[in-house]
């Protein structure tokens, strides 16, 4: 069993951190995993992306052509990565920053106004965690409890961030897709 996830957005939207939360959730469950930052020319030019693979068996190729899921935090990320989701997969779109005129009908598209919701919570930088919350029910190998444990580890030096992030993840979990 395997979850291949692509995460993309502007630099500063917490793309890499979102990936790390998933990676550490995998570590805590003794899964095989890879966290792969965007590499090559994509490192520059304002967009950031990373990929996470979680697996219950050894991961050989970690080159992702098509992902099971993707989280896109803005419109350019949507344009670039929505074709890279496998048919039957899940795409979480931050609809605050990516208004979709049309969308694929062979995948589940979750349009969540994550930036607006984050602003309501008083912290625009947690839109990434809201999106993660929306994706969690669609992941095969990790759940909220595992993410919570990973968050404890990742925010050990700044525990005040723990609650902020977990609240955001819960908001995402509660979100009902239209």
């Amino acid at each position: 069993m395997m979850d291949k996830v692509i995460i993309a957005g502007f630099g500063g939207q917490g793309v890499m951190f979102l990936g790390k939360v998933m990676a550490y959730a995998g570590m805590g469950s003794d899964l095989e995993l890879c966290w792969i930052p965007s590499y090559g020319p994509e490192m520059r030019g304002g967009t950031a992306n990373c990929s996470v693979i979680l697996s219950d068996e050894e991961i050989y190729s970690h080159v992702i052509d098509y992902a099971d899921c993707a989280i896109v935090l803005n419109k350019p990320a949507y344009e670039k990565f929505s074709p890279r989701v496998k048919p039957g997969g899940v795409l979480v779109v931050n609809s605050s920053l990516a208004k979709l005129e049309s969308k694929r009908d062979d995948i589940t598209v979750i349009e969540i106004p994550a930036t607006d919701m984050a602003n309501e919570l008083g912290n625009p930088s947690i839109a990434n965690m809201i999106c993660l919350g929306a994706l969690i029910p669609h992941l095969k190998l990790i759940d909220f409890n595992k993410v919570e444990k990973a968050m404890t580890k990742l925010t050990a030096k700044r525990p005040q961030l723990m609650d902020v992030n977990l609240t955001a993840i819960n908001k995402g979990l509660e979100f009902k897709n239209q």
Partner: protein
Amino acid sequence: MEKVLMKGNEIIGEAAIRSGCKVFFGYPITPSTEVVEYLSAHMPKHGGTVLQAEDEIGAINMCYGAACTGTRVMTASSSPGVSLKQEGISYSAAVGLPMVIVNVNRCGPGLGGLGPAQSDYFQSTRGGGHGDYRTIVLAPSKAQELYDYTMMAFDLADKYRNPVLLLTDGFLGQTMEPVVLKERPEAPAVDRDWVVDGARGREKRVLASYSLTNEIGEANNLVWEAKYKDIQEKEQHWEEFYTEDAEYLLVSYGITGRICKSTVLNARKKGIKLGLIRPITLWPYPEKAFLPFKDKVKGIVTVELNTGQMIEDVKLSVECKVPVHLYRRQGGMLPTEHEILDYVENTFGIAAREV
């Protein structure tokens, strides 16, 4: 044993510390920079020294000096930087100095790009600098191997008094994967009666590589040749994956070796008897791996990130008895597991049968 999540380049640094590497000389170059950064942060805590040299040439010659004292030493760089080091590597090979050189390969020639590549295969396996020498070359394909082969590199360097190259790439270097930080087994005892550390109560020693006469020159070359033959005999390492009943073989190392495993699994699902030989040592090339297959398999595909370099060694290893084809991507591009399988099917006209 501790299992941690680390970036590939950092794993090399941690393994070096745990291998008893006491001095590191380097110069920052993407995509190898995390090696020197990690060591700068952690090596001093273990009583080691990290020095950012004025340039790559300085760094490799500092390694040369440190190795002359019998101290475990490492440097790390990426392709253009490794080109600059070649003179120093040649001198180190000539004097017989144990050291570990990490090449986090980028694509070239010239400045090239930062993407994963295997374009330095010839440079790595044919000596690389001037003169007729060889360095032992290890090619990890995943996090745990970055750790294990770094340790192996130090031991081989000591055992054969020879520079050892760890050949990796930026994709492996940037990827975080779990790694078990195994405790280091006791390092094999090695002879240190050649080091230069001050002639206290002994005759003076000179470590140098000048051959005053042609006769001395030839005698030196014969000594090195004998050593290289010994290494070729004893240190060919490789991994086999679904080879036992294989009708077709992939041959690939490092990052593509790993991708090819997925290709093999996909092929097997389709009933295609595909196997993989993944060289772990690129020099000495594991030609022994091919002995059981050269009269048996129908065809071989090497998968490389260059214009076809290792394919020459594969053809030599099978004595051209088997058709050997090349599937390659270049310039920082990686093949997917699927495109490799497409190539195999098309090349050999294999009609997949579902099983």
